[in-house]
């Protein structure tokens, strides 16, 4: 009986989740163009990705740097702004909490492509809103997505706009789990607002923070759509990311084994960062 209920799900799960993870590992040790038979290549793909002499190796390391830069900024900003928004929405004196919560969450439901298109227009170097504002202030116009120094920060700002609503909702749930009595007790002991935040809110939210950081790292380390739509990796490769490189190699150059090696390296990076996060933000919280 159980088999009947499980069969459809397990079929999909094994075919499109579990199976592909293993297949990806195997593929990463082969040379495969998608048409002719895959040829065993040993660790050639990994060595080519990591220490090869071709231009692609330099690009890969560039993409690793970009991805880590993007993720670090994203995670720190999503976490801190998300917490600030949660505290704001949770504040006792605030009315229409549900309204504010929904408004801040709105960008999260927008697709990465649609959000990127909107911001592409805002960032437009000739007549975008941002440059019109700069012009109004008498400042020089900027080529937001065309300048290698500005392109990545511009994408980050957009992604933070699109992501803080999520961490806010998670933090809100966490805040509501903290017993009110703790705050009242602290108030009686003469703790200031900042002290209550520092000694009650922050430590008791630690498990939530761990969750936010880990999930945020996993999703941001795979950033693709924003880059694809807004800059296509440019200018001067300032915004290429690991997933973007993987996609280019797999579906433009049909180097499927090589791209699989990239995806496995990314997987290991994500795994390592998750472990590191658990060490940093983990640990038991006692009431």
């Amino acid at each position, binding site marked *: 009986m159980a088999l009947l209920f499980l069969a459809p799900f397990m079929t999909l799960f094994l075919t499109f989740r579990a199976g592909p*993870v293993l297949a990806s590992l195997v593929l990463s040790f082969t040379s495969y163009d998608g048409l002719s038979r895959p040829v065993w290549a040993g660790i050639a793909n990994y060595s080519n990705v990591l220490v090869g002499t071709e231009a692609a190796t330099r690009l890969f390391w560039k993409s690793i740097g970009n991805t880590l830069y993007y993720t670090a900024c994203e995670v720190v900003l999503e976490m801190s702004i998300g917490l600030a928004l949660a505290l704001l929405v949770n504040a006792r004196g605030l009315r229409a909490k549900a309204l*504010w919560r929904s408004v801040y*969450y709105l960008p999260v439901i927008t697709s990465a492509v649609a959000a990127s298109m909107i911001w592409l227009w805002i960032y437009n170097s000739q007549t975008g809103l941002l440059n019109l504002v700069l012009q109004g202030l008498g400042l020089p116009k900027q080529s937001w997505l065309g300048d290698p120094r500005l392109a990545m920060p511009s994408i980050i700002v957009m992604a933070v706009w699109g992501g803080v609503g999520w961490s806010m909702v998670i933090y809100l749930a966490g805040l509501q789990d903290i017993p009110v009595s703790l705050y009242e007790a602290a108030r009686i002991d003469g703790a200031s607002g900042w002290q209550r935040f520092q000694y009650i809110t922050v430590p008791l939210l630690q498990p939530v923070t761990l969750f936010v950081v880990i999930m945020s790292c996993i999703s941001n380390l795979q950033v693709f759509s924003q880059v694809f739509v807004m800059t296509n990796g440019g200018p001067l490769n300032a915004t290429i990311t690991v997933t973007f490189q993987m996609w280019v190699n797999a579906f433009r150059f049909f180097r499927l084994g090589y791209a699989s090696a990239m995806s496995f390296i990314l997987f290991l990076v994500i795994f390592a960062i998750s472990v590191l996060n658990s060490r940093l933000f983990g640990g038991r919280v006692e009431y």
Partner: protein
Amino acid sequence: MNTNQVATGSGRLQRKAGLQAVPVRRAGATVLHAVAAGIGVVMVFPFLWMLSSSVKPATELFRFPPTLLPSQWHFENYARAWEAARFSRYFGNSVVVAVGGTLLSLTVCSMAAYAFSKLHFRGREALFWLVLGSQMIPGIITLIPSFLVVRAIPLAGGNDLLGRGGYGWLNSYAGLIVPGAGGAFGVFLLRQFFLTVPEDLLDAARIDGCGDFGIFGRIVIPLAKPALAALSIFTFQGYWNDFVWPLVITSQDQFRTIQLGLIVFRQRFTTDWGPLMAGVTIATAPMLLVFLLAQRYFVRGIALTGIKG
């Protein structure tokens, strides 16, 4: 100071503190609302700008200083967007894929969740943890093999029995819908909910001669409506907003979804931002509508499971 001491040291005073009314100063409340509104404007402004640009005449898009309201409303941008580059087709494809995918995913996941919560079989816990653990694996790693699997579906798209020779499910609704339907997240969410359905209720039904399919269909599913509502919203969102998978498996215009349509669109209208923003508005509207109608399910569902959009 540590929280332990705060908690135990003044336990006796808690009740007293609870009775104390906390005076909210009017100035403080005003500042609070001003801050909330200010941030709200920042969050909503890109959407307003999108709407405003979509109805402005072309000449006004570039005017300085910029205005939020157009001098004349030009709705023909929507008509141009809708007719251009098979946009209606992309939109229709997305509806088919998102609705179909949601129905399939809900069916498959709720059945599995029933097995994981209400049926007893060997290795149940181990299997469940395997499924759950797969959520920590970045989705991108399955992209290339999933593409190869979809291409090699036997007897589809000109393939032989061993999945060779043809294109399988590339460029098909099945290829867009089926691979995404077996998410661990859905099983987890529904299982948590099914666990709260009391065993007694199920036993009573069994005594009355109800089989597992009867219990599943007539008792568990109707009781789980809130969880199913939350899951269906997230699943719909996932399918509607997805970009990478449709990008990889469709090459024909006929099967492109709306997110890909936007890209095609951009190539076509390069600097014609009016119709472009109208297109983005059309692509965003269904999700906005779903969100407005079902906000409480959204928030509850995220808090419950932590899904990352």
